[in-house]
């Protein structure tokens, strides 16, 4: 039933868009009355939108469900894995190991969260905005650490790591 509703609302909306654009080819703004075809087509667009919104409220997509389970575990993992990476840097002073670790963190933890950011926004609403902003800050810092490591500036790596720890604490607070 819901699939038919989603399909139907999409068709009605698309039809409204096509007919409004087509009617605008010959319709003059000054000549519009309540019975003008363009009024009917605008009404179709609105109807399609109303159906669509009604359908969306009833749904909870698999992405949204997945997003609910993504957030906390990844936040704590980012912190743990990154601490390990920094420890390795302090012991070995090995840039390759650090860069490899950062790439691993980005690929295994940040990318899946970023991939789901629309779903996270949809699931958590207003509350998720702060989480997404904090995650973006963490991502920028990881990128900075990677750049500093590749450029050979260990002090900057450590400074940025300290900032990353602050950001991850903020994420934990929000979550």
């Amino acid at each position: 039933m819901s699939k038919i509703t989603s399909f139907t609302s999409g068709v009605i909306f698309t039809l409204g868009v096509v007919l409004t654009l087509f009617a605008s080819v010959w319709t003059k703004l000054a000549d519009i009355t309540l019975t003008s075809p363009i009024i009917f087509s605008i009404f179709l667009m609105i109807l399609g939108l109303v159906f669509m919104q009604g359908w969306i409220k009833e749904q909870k997509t698999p992405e949204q469900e997945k997003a609910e389970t993504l957030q906390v575990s990844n936040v704590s993992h980012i912190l743990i894995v990154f601490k390990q990476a920094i420890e390795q840097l302090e012991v070995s002073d090995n840039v390759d190991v650090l860069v490899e670790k950062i790439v691993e963190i980005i690929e295994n933890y940040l990318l899946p969260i970023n991939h789901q950011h629309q779903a996270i926004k949809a699931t958590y609403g207003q509350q998720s905005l702060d989480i997404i902003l904090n995650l973006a800050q963490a991502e920028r810092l990881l990128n900075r650490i990677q750049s500093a490591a590749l450029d050979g500036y260990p002090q900057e790596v450590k400074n940025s790591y300290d900032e990353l720890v602050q950001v991850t604490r903020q994420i934990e607070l929000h979550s």
Partner: protein
Amino acid sequence: MKTQTYREFTVAATILGILQGVILVVAFAYISLKLGFSLGGSAIAAILGYVLLRGVLGVGTSVENNINQTIASSINTAGTGVAFVMPALFLLQAQDPSFSFALTPLLVSGVAGALLGVVLIIPLRKQLIELDRLRFPTGTATATIIRSGSEGFSKAKYLFIGLIVSAIWKGILISGLVAEEVSFGFGIIPLYLSPFIYLSLMNVAAGMLSGRGGLPFFWGGILGWWILSPMIVHFSPESIPVGLEAAGVVDFIYGEMLRPLGIGILIGAALMGVVLAYPSMMAAFRSLLSASKIKSQRELPLWLLAVIVLLVFSALLWSLIQSTDFSLGYLIFVVLIAIIWAWVASLIVAQSVGLSDITPLSGMALVTVFLMMILLDGNVVASITLTMGIGIAITQGADMMQDLKTGFLIGSKPIYQQIVQLSFAWIGVFVSVGVLYLLWQSGVGDQGGFGPGTTLPAPQASTLTSLVSAVQNDTVPTDKFIFGGIVGVMLTLAPIAGLGVLVGLAMYLPFSITLGYGIGCLISMGLEKQYGYSFIEKIIVPLASGLIIGEALVGVGDAIYGVLS
């Protein structure tokens, strides 16, 4: 391993950025008069930055190169805005000797525009880059090239494969062995379905970087050319002038129907987008207000942005007072409207560039001239003076956002990028005005140095003068702007991210471009389905970045060669 402070905002990067920016402005101002389009300088500045900072001086870092590239592209972009608008005044003066204009108000308006674009777009950074996560294909490509300088060539193999393939392909296109745009109609598919594809790998690569998110752009092209166009031809033939040949019909449908509707959709979508994104914009705004405790995340404070807006307001007001007799109160109202429009248009252009890498600047210039001519009662000099400021502001906003995306991907501090863009973009205005003035003076006899009939035809200026004529003759398609605006509002209310802006942009552009981009989106979606999104990030992003940079480099090289020869 180095123990000193991480090099970022340095004298070397600043000087190099200014030098590159000035050289690019001189070259690209000339190219835009010759060919009618300009080019982005970010990727070129990043490559030269790497060569000069690290190769020659032996000191460059990734974030330092980002500062160099931000400065160079800001100067270049400001100059491009001047080169698009100012030649129109010279041409109008050549047509009518009684027409006169002063240089100082233009310069003041241009510098004000360079500042305005940056301060208007800074509060939207978190919204567009961190919340909406727009791709900004050229910004991503520039970050990839900067990062590859540090990683070493072996780790950037996909980037270089893409770069070489794209450079060779662009070379083949330039040589004429293969046409840049080919028909797949085979004499069967009618012209009104626009059976053409633009064989640009850069275009396909932008689609590959956008993936599923760019698909509405493809849908917009199909809506325009495979649904609306045949409907117009078959069900409303009376709306097409009698006697046009097939190609003329296509030009009419595109120029008089789809393009104005596309502009309207873009404006409606942007306005509705602001309304819908209000909660997230406020969250981003609060984050900006609270002046981040994290040092590397800081941005220019809002009070400073407000002060600069006031200065810009005063400068634009002063430049208007020089060429109009309206009351001060009315001129304040006009400047206020101009600044609000600059913000909306900056948002439209930044979103378009972020989603598709394509800027609808000429469409925004059309609306700006139209708005200013109406508000200033047809005063051409005052309208173009204000249009120049607003045009530069619009391009600066998109350029700032593109560079901030690059900065995000390599971990730069946004505040440094914002400071350099604000501090140096104005240089482009002075250099470009100087170049145009010298070129105009170099004309033989009574003829100016550029314009129709010379070796520098200045097609963009001709377009702008025709826009002025359209407003004077009341032939601007305002009805289509308004109907398009209604559709844009509705599309933005639909639950598909970026639908309104992308559909509007697709109808505004030729279908040959939309088609290539759509193919890129489909390729990316197919690969993601098959191999997962980490494959896209690890292989497709550097490969597509290489495709963009390869074509850009050969394109710039060819343009400069064409000018020199």
